[in-house]
């Protein structure tokens, strides 16, 4: 074991090997945040669609979840990176931007849309866990259906689903490691690059694992604070 390796400069000389890992960590965090925003927005919309009266919209959101849940994340990532630019109009322009941006965009789209399917199911469960009387009361007061969602159902559901969303937050962050397979230099990829350059596999993997544990613990602490603020007093979800 020689942890001094982290402080020696990389071949190009502009930083140390530790600098490489920290760059990777920054990419991992940026990617997780970008995908998480996309997943929350799209997942919430799909989750609402799964509970509306219109059967067409419900079926659309249902098929989305089926599709994105039953194909492995790695396959989805390769489809976003290798297949979509070939088939989509304007794909040739995508292939001209710099490789890092290409990899980052494909990864964010992939992780975001993959996680949206999971967020969708949590949002749906949150809305369905509310007593039916809430929706009926909203409609009976003369609110339109969108108003009932906006002012009655969603504010309650949003607070109820914070605990399951904590684990989805952790999942997005952990799943971002898969994006090392298309060459995106996030934390795992930087760790592997370090092994290729220095042959210090144990030191490198230990450092990368420690960084993952650190960020994981930080997210858990943050989300615990959010959970305690979002808790609905006297509600089933507030046990603990």
């Amino acid at each position, binding site marked *: 074991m020689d942890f001094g390796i982290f402080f020696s400069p990389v071949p190009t000389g502009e930083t140390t090997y530790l600098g490489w890992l920290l760059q990777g960590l920054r990419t991992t965090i940026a990617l997780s945040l970008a995908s998480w925003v996309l997943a929350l927005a799209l997942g919430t919309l799909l989750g609402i669609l799964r509970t509306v009266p219109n059967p067409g919209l419900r079926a659309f959101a249902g098929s989305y979840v*089926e599709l994105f849940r*039953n194909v492995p994340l790695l396959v989805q990532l390769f489809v976003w990176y*290798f297949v979509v630019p070939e088939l989509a109009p304007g794909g040739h322009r995508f292939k001209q931007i710099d490789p890092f941006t290409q990899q980052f965009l494909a990864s964010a789209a992939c992780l975001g849309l993959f996680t949206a399917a999971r967020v969708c199911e949590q949002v749906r469960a949150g809305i369905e866990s509310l007593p039916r009387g809430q929706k009926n009361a909203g409609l009976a007061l003369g609110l339109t259906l969108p108003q009932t969602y906006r002012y009655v159902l969603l504010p309650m559901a949003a607070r109820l689903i914070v605990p399951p969303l904590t684990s989805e937050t952790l999942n997005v962050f952990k799943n971002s490691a898969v994006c090392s397979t298309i060459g995106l230099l996030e934390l795992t990829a930087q760790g592997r690059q370090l092994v290729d350059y220095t042959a210090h596999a144990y030191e490198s*993997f230990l450092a990368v694992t420690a960084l993952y544990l650190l960020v*994981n613990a930080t997210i858990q602490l943050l989300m615990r604070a959010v959970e305690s603020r979002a808790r609905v007093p006297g509600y089933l979800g507030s046990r603990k």
Partner: protein
Amino acid sequence: MYEFDWSSIPGSLPFLWQGMMISLGITIVAVAAGIAWGTVLAVMRLSPSRPISLFATLYVSLFRSVPLVMVLLWFFLIVPSLLRDVLRLSHATDLRLASAMVGFSLFEAAYYSEIMRAGIQSVSKGQSSAALALGMTPLQAMWHVVLPQAFRNMVPLLLTQAIILFQDTSLVYVSALADFFGAAYKVGDRDGRLVEMLLFAGAVYFVLCSAASWGVRVLRRRVLA
């Protein structure tokens, strides 16, 4: 417009089939070993002894905090040299499959242990009290009375986790082991037909996993009924 050419698929079916056998092999080993070790961990976690439950808690939270890709990289690094030392194998022996199986089993055990813990806690307290009153030791009560019921309650969740595990086996890609996905990628790369092979692989996973999920839904209705 992109011109599709699916002609790589028929000729490569035997190779893809071999890959599928590797994917399924890893899945079956990891599900069996993961459930067994996960159940032991769940029982340890609920044990009255502090050090035992602390060990299980640390194990589970460690494996749940690290990405699967990273866990697999660790196992592809450590297991081969360990096994070579213990079994005195030559360096030419390919141990990637064994490493993948060990890695997936130990990783999935952490997730299975959470499911089994919920299962054990779902069995009413009177069951184990009654078993103890009949003169069983705590371990006998666990094995003969609590675990069979916990297992039955959790069958749908255990199977759903197995479907997720099957999808995750594609990540052995990081070791260049030719599982189903790796085989499809290699064929696509060789023939310059990556688009078609990736779509084909995705479709196969989709059909298999949807069918399995549907089966689990039917089963769940029966278990609940």
